[in-house]
C-alpha cells in the first residue's frame, strides 16, 4: 500500500469517528431534553 493510500484510510477512520461523535452528541442532547428533569445530555459546554 502506498503512503498516500494509508493516509486516505487513516483520514477516513478519523472522519467516521467524527461523524459518529456528532451523531451521538446530537442524539444524547435531544434524548435528555425529552424528559423534564434530566441533565442537558452531558458536555453541553456550559
Amino acid at each position: 500500500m502506498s503512503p498516500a493510500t494509508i493516509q486516505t484510510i487513516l483520514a477516513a477512520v478519523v472522519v467516521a469517528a467524527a461523524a459518529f461523535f456528532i451523531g451521538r452528541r446530537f442524539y444524547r442532547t435531544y434524548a435528555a431534553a425529552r424528559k423534564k428533569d434530566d441533565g442537558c445530555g452531558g458536555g453541553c459546554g456550559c
Partner: protein
Amino acid sequence: MDTVGPDLIDTPTAPSSAQPARGEGVIRVALIGNPNTGKSTLFNALTGMRQRVGNYAGVTVERVEGRYRNDSGHQVTVLDLPGTYSLSANSPDEEIALAVLVGRAPGVPAPDVVVVVLDAQNLERNLFLASQVIELGHPVVIALNQVDAAEAAGLRIDPVELTLELGTPVVQTVATRGQGLDVLRRAIDRAAEMPLPERKFELPEPLAAALAPVESCLINGGLPPSTAAMEALRLLGTSTLEGHLKGTEGLDAAVARARNSVREEGGDPRSVEAELRYSWIAGVVENTVHRISGSGKTLTDRVDSVVLHRVWGPLIFVALMAIVFQSIFTWAEPLMTSVEGLLGAIGSAVGSTLPPGDLRSLIVDGVIAGVGSVLVFIPQITILFLFIGFLEDTGYMARAAFIMDRFMRGVGLHGRSFIPMLSGYACAVPGVMSTRTIENPKDRLATIMVLPLMSCSARIPIYTLLIGTFIPPIAIAGIFNLQGMTLLVMYLLGTVTALAMAAVFKSTLLRGRPRPMIMELPPYRLPNLRSLLLAAGHRVSLFLKKAGTIILAVSILLWALATYPKTEAPPAMDAGAAQELQLANSTLGQIGHAIEPLVRPLGYDWKIGVSIMSSFAAREVFVSTMGTIYGVGEADETSLALRDKLRTETHDDGRPVYTPLVAVGLMVFYVYAMMCMSTNAVVMRETGGGWKGLGWASFQFLYMLALAYGAALLVYRGGLALGFGA
C-alpha cells in the same frame, strides 16, 4: 477571630437517639442559606471546588455536590442548595431545597447535617430560614459568615449568645479568606452527636390545636414529628401542596380546616407563620447583636447615590460596558496575533513533517485551520470574563440589575428575570436553567423565549472576527474607537430586542401582570483575585473543551465534505483557481450552491451559507467552518490568517464578497439567530419536555431565525439603498 465550635458549647454532648445512620462512613451535608450570603464561596472553600460565585443573589440555581475528607478520614459530601429566603417552596428552586431537606427528593438521601449559612450583616432576615431549618429535626450547624463585613458596618454578634438562643453550634466564618473553616469542619463532624435542635417558640394554644390534625396527617404520611410540626405551620400560608406532599391522605381538608380556625380567631393564615417567627427573631437579635458604631452613611451608600441615580446610573452602566468592549479589542489584539502565529507555525511544522496526502490535509486544513481559527479568540473571551467577574464580585452587577429592573418591568417581565438574562451573556444554557427561580410559569416562559437574544460568549469569535477585519479602528471621543462601539451596539441590539420581544410575548401569548421583586443590594467589596482568575479560567476551559470536541468533530466532517469528491484541476490552472474548482465541485460546494439562493438576498455567498448552516451545532462553528473552507486545497502551508483571506475573497466578477455592510448584516444575523443545539435542547426540556417542549423550542428557533433573516435583509438592502455597499 472569635469562633464558637462544638468544643466550646455549653450543651450536653450525649449521643442523640436520632443520630442518623451514615452509610459506609460518608457524611452527607446540605448547605443552605439566603441568596448572596457567600454560600457558594463557603462551598468552594470547604470542598476545593470551583462552583460559580457572584456578589449578587441567585447564582446557584441547581444542586451542586462536592466532597472532602475530614480529620478521621471519612468522606464528607457537601450539597450546595439554591439560595432561598424561606422554605415556602414558591418557586422550583425553593421546592428543590425543601424536598432535599425533608428527604423527599428523588435519588437524594436526606442530609446527615445541615449547615445554614447566615449573613452576619442581615441576621434578622437570615434567621427566618434558619428557624425553619432548625425545626426540621436534622443536626444543624450555623455558619455565621461575613462577620468581617458586619464589623466594618458597626455590628458585632455575640456567637455564644446566638448558640444558646438557637440551640445549635454557631461558627463564625469569612469564607472569602478561608477563616473559620477548620472549626466549621469539626462542628460538622460532631453535629450528629449533639442534641437535635427544636422549635424555640411556643405556638399559641388555639393555633396549636388548629394545626394538630394537619400534623397528624403529615406524620401518617411518613414525616417525622418535628418535620411535620414545621410543615404544618408552613402549609397555613402556602396556596398549593408541593410535589413531596401530594397524595398525603386528608391533608388538603385538614389544612383548609386549620386555616378556617385561624380566621375564626381573627388571624390571617397567610401571615401567621411570619408573625410568629419574626417576633421570636426580634428577641434573638436584641440579645445577640450589638451596634458598635453609629449608623451614618457607609461608603456603599455614598457610591450608590451616584451609581443608582435615575440619570447617571444608566449612563455609568453604558460607559462601563463601552470600556469593557473597547478593552477586548485594544488588549486582545497583540495576544491574538501571537496565538495566530503559534498556530501558523504548528501548521507549517505538520505540513513539512508529513508527506502530501489526505491525512496531512485533514490535520492542516481541517483541524488546525478549523479549530485554530476559533482558538485565536481565547484572549477576548478571557478579558470579557475577567471584566464580568470583576463587576460581579464588586457588587456592581446587582446595581446593574436594579437599573435594568425599571426597563424590565416596563415590558412586563418579572424582576427575577434579570439574573437569568445576565447569565445569558455568558451562555444561554445556564441562563435558561436559572429561570427556575421565577415563580409564575408565564413569566418564566417569556424569559426563556427571549433569553437567547442576549449575546452569549459563543458569538464573540464571530463578532470580533468580522469587526476586527472589516470595521476600521477610528477614534471616537478620544478614548473609544469604532470597533469597540460596534461590539457594544451588537450587545445592546440583542438586549433591546430581548426586551421588545418580551413586551410582545407578555401582551399576546403570555399575557399577565408584571410582579415586583424585592432586590437585595450587597455592599461593595474588593474582588478576590483568585476567585476572578478561577471564574475566567473556568469559562476558558469550557471554551477549550468545546473546541476540542464538537468544533473539532464538525471541522473534520466539513473537511471531508469540502475534499470529496476530488476534482483534478487542469495542469495549466493556477493554485487559487484549482482550490476554487475543488471546493465548488465538492459535496460541501454542492450543498452550498443548493442553499445559495436563500442567502444571496442578504449579500452572502454559498460559503457563508454553509457556515451558517453548520453553526447550528454551536455558533463558534461558523468561524471554524470558514477556517476549514478557506484552508482546504491550499497551495502551501504558510497560509494567511483567516482575516486576511476574508479581506481578499472576491465574487466571480471581481467584487469583494465581504464589505463592511455584509459584515454588519452577518453580525446582526448572529445577534438574532438561535444557532445553538444545546440551548435548543435545554429550552425543550425546561418548557415541559416531550411534544410540548418540542413545540416551544421549535417556535423559538423559528421566530428567532425569521427575526435574524429579516434584520440582516433590512441591514443589507437598506445599506445598499443608502449607498453603503462599497
